């Protein structure tokens, strides 16, 4: 039998973050392996957002390390981590509201292609930018809405747009912060199908409250409570874990 050591794409070790007396992240160790969807769940206030901020680089950890794509990224800026292939979506959609959906994705394409320090060629006549961006919009099903200002898109469409931007970055990892939030049942279902396929492209760290989606999608689940990971394992194991049931799933399961 082949003994291929699968090296994780993202490896977080002993991460600690304090806000004054509050320890918001308390020695978190977590990894994300190629091809998987790893769901991060936990009650409100467990420190999920703080953890995500540290992974993306908007917050700096107090101690511990974050390795991504084979290098220590703990000291890099948000933009530098993004260029290494860390794609993310936000709990509250983050888009350039005045730009059309197309121009939002074009921004990601231009960032991926390299320099934003090109001063002369108009972007709207840059066929390679437009074509690549349109292809991404098509994948998330937004082709018909390409020319609509992002501010006028519906909630669900903005989620799709964010995913299109992450796709355009050809991210090696997707970090999705509550993608199902605010989606109707129909939207949740189609997004679930989409994410199911997406994992073949790059692994997903999925922060989500929608347990149906989590149980349907996740290969592994980690449970974060008071800044600590109290359990990590396959779906069935987590469902059965007594500590998880008391701490979190009690009212869901």
């Amino acid at each position, binding site marked *: 039998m082949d003994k291929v050591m699968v090296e994780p794409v993202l490896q977080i070790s002993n991460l600690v973050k304090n806000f004054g007396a509050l320890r918001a992240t308390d020695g978190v160790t977590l990894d994300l392996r190629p091809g998987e969807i790893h769901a991060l769940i936990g009650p409100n206030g467990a420190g999920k957002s703080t953890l995500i901020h540290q992974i993306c680089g*908007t917050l700096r950890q107090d101690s511990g390390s974050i390795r991504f794509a084979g290098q220590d990224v703990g000291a890099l800026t948000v*933009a530098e981590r993004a260029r290494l292939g860390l794609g993310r979506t936000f709990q509250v959609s*983050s888009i350039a509201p*005045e730009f059309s959906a197309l121009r939002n994705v074009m*921004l990601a394409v*231009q960032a991926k292609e390299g320099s934003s320090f090109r*001063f002369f060629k108009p972007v*709207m006549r840059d066929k390679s*930018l437009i074509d690549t961006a349109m292809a991404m919009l098509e994948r998330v099903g937004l082709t018909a809405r390409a020319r609509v200002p992002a501010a006028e898109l519906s909630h669900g469409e903005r989620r799709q747009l964010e995913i299109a*931007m992450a796709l355009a970055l050809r991210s090696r990892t997707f970090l999705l912060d509550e993608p199902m939030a605010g989606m109707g049942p129909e939207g949740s279902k189609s997004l679930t199908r989409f994410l199911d396929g997406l994992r073949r492209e790059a692994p997903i760290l999925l922060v989500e409250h929608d347990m149906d989606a989590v149980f349907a999608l996740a290969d592994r689940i980690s449970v974060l409570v008071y800044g600590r990971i109290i359990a990590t394992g396959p779906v069935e194991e987590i469902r059965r874990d007594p500590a998880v049931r008391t701490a979190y799933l009690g009212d869901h399961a």
Partner: protein
Amino acid sequence: MLTRENLVNLILALGLLAVPLAANALGQPFYITLATRVAILALAATGLNLALGVGGLVSFGHAAFFGIGGYVAGIVAAHNFSGDPLLFGFSGTNQMWIIWIVAVALAGLVGLAIGVISLRTSGVYFIMITLAFAQMVYYFAVSWPAYGGEDGLSILVRNQFPGVMTMVPLNYFLICYIILLLGIALFAILRASRFGAALQAARQNEVRVATVGIQPYRIRLTGFVLSAMITGLAGALFADLNRFVSPSMLSWHMSGELIVLIILGGTGRLFGPLAGAALYVAFEYALGGVTERWQFFLGLILLLVVLFARGGLLGVLAGKARHG
């Protein structure tokens, strides 16, 4: 494509050309000077519009770049006149194009120095810090007696441009007009480019820009420096128009006025600065003729525009701004 906005822009550009031509035919050189003033202020505000309108960087210190451009013209001309060496054996020139290059370069350098520090901050801090740095330049000019200090510096003879009699008002207007159109064209090109896309996106959503892997700071710094350079060029033209440069070009009122021009015209609009400058100079002239207290009414009008008509003149004439 002849949209309503393009039509309004065309009318503005042709209107600015028509006024001095008519004034020249009627022997009214005063209106040529007025139109030249509009062109130069519009150019200065176009520079600021790149930072403020496109990049969302509310610089309250662009008078520094305007004044630096002006002082370059004044100082270089003064040395040329007196023959005293200025730097490295260079004893000045009266050639406008050399002055323009020096003015643009120096404004860009100072813009870089101010931007490097100011852009580490944002919001109110940025506004106040740009204001403070401009004041620093202002007080330097006031307290440095070699070039006139508080009294300013006269340019005895307007600087030269090869093949053009610059002292003829219409000729000088045409020089300024052409540079204005080039400046507006440059603004349009920059705004439509990848750089412009990143700069606009950084205004709309900084986090989003960083998340796709673009450093907002570098984009903004570049935008700020380019903006300073354009405004610096306008300053050099302004000094040659008045044949005089003084610390008032560096004062915070000047910074405020440049912002006012943009807002009166329509923030971020290609021809907003021109519309604003035309409106402003017209106010100044029309109100100034009626009452000594025209600044009071200017304040009142500005207040009403800010509170109730946020799109500016172009917002009224050409509808809402559109982004591709």
